[in-house]
């Protein structure tokens, strides 16, 4: 029995409405409990901000990030964020580390832990390549992991939607999650992945997918209904059509509106829209490009059925990686950059392209502003999850820097002062004076995630929750984040303590222990008769079209580290 008592912590836990109150936290055997014995190890957290461990609900940290590493060996040496990037020799406790945007697996675990993060969600698992994702998960130390499986351009999905077979569709989703050991349904540029199989794309919600006689809107609705029928813990997780195109904010709002008719089967959103920064562009071309954030935020403020994340841009080098194959090809052609592509048979597409966000480029400056505008214009922080869509908008190691933008208008003004007039004319950020406090920041970095992923034991400090805890050497009330942002950044860059399942993994910003994390996956129950009928259809798919056999397609249990199976009961 291991016990820890965190004494006099200044606790910020929005799930319980606790706003920086001094409290003790008791831990026994990895969980938060009411009380501990006198033998408990004591951590003195007096004067320290204490929150649940951070939860990155949308990051690219296993799978196609390996393509990013492969094509960018130069990234290994980048040291743009001291202590959280570049080459670090092995120690008795840690494996060797490299990288900035595309760190090796060990560095990902250590660096997230240093930031006080304890859980991550890999936002795109191709079913056929899921085993690879789990192999990388296994080598990411400390963190708990989950992944979202791709369904948005899947032949079987599109056929069931076209043929109006919603029950079989749900059964297929349940099977796909089991096969890939995934946690939820990810939809990237619905239909666009299949069109990219022919070098094409879809242009919006009602543009038919070549050869499949369905539209992106039908794919979205079909999957959302299946998602709710299965009562999955997370809603559908949507990367909208037309990503990265001027004028796309309209498609984004249209997509959000579509989901007004979806009734969530659990106490969570009906829709999560991801990296909205890349989907909140106004204008008609790159010449008259401007922010569309106010329109999107306006809609979100009046809606109660969705959550979203930012995809905040960080200036400097980034590596874009997405299942949106056509977007990556367009990026590579436009930027004259190298381009990797991987289309996945019967399922989806993907691409990887490095790029550089420069504050001197008016487009990049406006992109930077849009992410912040979205976070600040949307009034309810419970609708917002903070991300950089790492490493698409920038690496997660820049989160502390980005927090200062959210918490300090002065800091924003400093950055903005370097922008061109043209950039300033295209954004609304300079007119926004809202500054987030620590409570709101905690909502966006842990509490929203707890709710939107239906993980009541994560992202909060309630009795019974996992003892995943971050203690930062900073005290709300004694520090003014709007002016003392240097201290804010410093404190969030190296937690005084990070506890993972009640074990001290980081102390004074250094790695103490490297336990293995859990892997969450969803096993959704489907009536046998429907499952059998569905299996017949996919047997045919495997026989005729796939290049691997069905039995070898399923991720074997041996690939899952400390698996946590989340069962759900489908409604049929």
């Amino acid at each position, binding site marked *: 029995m291991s016990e820890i008592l965190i004494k006099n912590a200044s606790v910020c836990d929005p799930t319980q409405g606790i706003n920086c109150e001094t409290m003790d936290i008791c831990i026994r055997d990895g969980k938060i409990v009411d009380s501990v014995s006198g033998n408990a190890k004591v951590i003195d957290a007096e004067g320290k901000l204490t929150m649940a461990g951070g939860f990155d609900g949308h990051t690219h940290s*296993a799978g196609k990030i*390996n*393509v990013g*590493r*492969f*094509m960018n*060996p130069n*990234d*290994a040496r980048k040291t743009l964020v001291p202590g959280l990037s570049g*080459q*670090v*020799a*092995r120690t008795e406790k840690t*494996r*060797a*580390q*490299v*990288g900035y945007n*595309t*760190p*090796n*697996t060990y560095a990902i675990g250590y660096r997230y832990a240093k930031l006080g993060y304890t859980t991550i969600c890999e936002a795109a698992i191709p079913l*056929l*390549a899921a*085993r*690879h994702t789990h*192999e*990388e998960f296994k*080598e990411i130390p400390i963190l708990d992991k989950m992944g979202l499986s791709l369904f948005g351009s899947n*032949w079987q999905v599109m056929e069931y939607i076209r043929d109006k077979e919603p029950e079989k569709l749900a059964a297929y989703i349940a099977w796909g999650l089991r096969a890939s050991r995934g946690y939820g349904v990810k939809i990237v540029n619905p239909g666009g992945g299949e069109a*990219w*199989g*022919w*070098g094409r794309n879809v242009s919006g919600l009602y543009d038919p997918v070549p*050869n499949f006689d369905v539209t992106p809107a039908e794919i979205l609705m079909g999957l959302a209904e299946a998602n709710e029928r299965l009562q999955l813990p997370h809603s559908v997780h949507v990367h909208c059509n037309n990503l990265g195109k001027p004028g796309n904010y309209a498609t984004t709002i249209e997509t959000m509106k579509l989901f007004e008719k979806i009734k969530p089967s659990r106490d969570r959103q009906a829709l999560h829209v991801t990296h909205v920064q890349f989907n909140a562009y106004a204008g008609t071309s790159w010449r008259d490009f401007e922010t569309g954030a106010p329109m999107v935020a306006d809609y979100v403020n009046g809606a109660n059925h969705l959550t979203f994340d930012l995809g905040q841009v960080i200036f400097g080098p980034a590596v874009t990686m997405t299942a949106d194959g056509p977007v990556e*090809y367009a990026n*590579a*052609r436009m930027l004259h*950059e*190298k*381009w*990797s*592509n*991987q*289309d*996945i*048979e*019967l399922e989806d597409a993907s691409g*990887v*392209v490095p790029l550089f966000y420069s504050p001197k480029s008016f487009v990049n400056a406006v992109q930077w502003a849009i992410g912040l505008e979205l976070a600040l214009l949307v009034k309810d922080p419970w609708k917002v999850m903070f991300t950089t869509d790492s490493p698409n908008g920038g690496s997660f190691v820049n989160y502390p820097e980005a927090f200062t933008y959210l918490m300090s208008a002065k800091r924003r003004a400093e950055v903005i002062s370097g922008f061109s007039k043209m950039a300033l004319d295209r954004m609304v950020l300079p007119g926004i004076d809202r500054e987030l406090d620590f409570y709101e920041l905690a909502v966006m970095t842990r509490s929203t995630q707890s709710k939107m992923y239906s993980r009541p034991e994560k992202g909060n400090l309630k009795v019974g929750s996992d003892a995943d805890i971050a203690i930062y050497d900073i005290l709300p009330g004694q520090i003014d984040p709007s002016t003392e942002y240097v201290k804010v950044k410093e404190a969030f860059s190296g937690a005084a303590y990070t506890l993972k399942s009640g074990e001290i993994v980081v102390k004074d910003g250094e790695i103490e222990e490297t336990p293995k994390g859990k892997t969450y996956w969803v096993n959704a129950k489907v009536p046998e008769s429907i499952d059998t009928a569905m299996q017949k259809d996919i047997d045919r798919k495997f026989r*005729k*079209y*796939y*290049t*691997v*056999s069905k*039995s*070898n397609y399923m991720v*074997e249990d*041996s690939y899952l580290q400390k698996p946590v199976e989340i069962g759900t009961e489908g409604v049929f």
Partner: protein
Amino acid sequence: MPVIKDAVCSLCGSLCDDITVTVEDNKITKIENACILGQSKFVGMFKHDRIETPMIRKDGELVPVPYEEAIEAAAKILVNSRRTLSYGWCSTSCEAVSGAIQLAEETGSVIDSTANVCHGPTALAAQEKGAPSATLGEIKNRADVIIFWGCNPVHAHPRHMVRYSSFSKGLFTEKGRKGRKMIVVDVRKTDTAKLADSYIEIEQGSDLLLVTALRSIVNGHEDVIPETIAGVPKAEVLELAETLKNAKFVCIFFGMGVTQSRSKYKNGDAMSSLISDLNQHTKAVMIGMRGHYNVTGFGQVATWETGFPMAIDFSKGYPYYNPGETGANDLLVRGEPDAAIIAAADPGAHFPQKAIRHLAKIPVIQIDPYANPTTEIADVVIPSAIVGIEAEGTAYRMDAISLRMKKLIESKFKTDEEIVKDLTAKVRELKRGA
């Protein structure tokens, strides 16, 4: 009589996963679906070459010893070495590769794979221009134009054409071979070329010229092309470019004829650019014809664990990568390593003389199921179980799809994974004692 279905063939980079194996009395008695290469591996045609027991060289002779003794001797070599080369690891599981990387990290060694002498330049090309690729099923279901460039699947990947490429049938390729154009570019008329609709014979080492010419034409500059290019008449090159542009889906499969001929990685770099250009007109991808069944896996594991796909030097405690300097042959030719650990590969048969001469001078640890020319110069020989037959584990197909290889029969041999683990534990123990 156990019959195991959907076994994965651990011979070539095609990694066929539809093999049916019958096992009687712990012996494989029947193989279905495998090609002749796969057959010979499964039924143990090489059985007579198995290393029967661990061995240590004493007074010039390899003498049998128990595993523990061999592991201890190997660990001593590693602990006393200041610059170990760890090489091979391509005909074994990803789990063994992962262990080998950890061992290299802890001993400050350089670790490199057989890509050093085959598709290493493909990785360099990807670092220059990216790798526009697809899984093999995309080719099966969509491709109407397939090029085999500098490779000969009829002999090296016998089932590739039936399962994934020329002869396969898919949703949009119902007619199979009849609905496809198959083109071979090579320096000699291979057996693959004999099956092609058109064979383009190019001069040795002139791949880059031909790719560049194709790019020029695809981009609208056919006027700059001379009457003959790379030994091919201009008309033929124009026709090829036209075929590519008008295709619905093109795949270029390229082999060592491209990666190891003159211009090396620049060939892949140019080919990647050609694919990018072609996508302005049609859909096009490229896939490297990887040879050993898990050479792709080594690259994958090394990349996620160290940031680099090959030639990784841990002497500074962190991974340092500079192929040309830190590749296995670079090191050996410079006479740098003072010990070597060679697993699941045979540099004795494939490396240049100068490299082998140096290998012969230094203590060499060999981990392998089979005796080969490297055994002749090894000082410690540790036999291992054959992955995919006697041991399970992960391998990556040439298109980076990973599959779980099955264990089909029991074996008295330790697996590579276990050997590496034991070795690492022993090294730690010796270091602590020191």
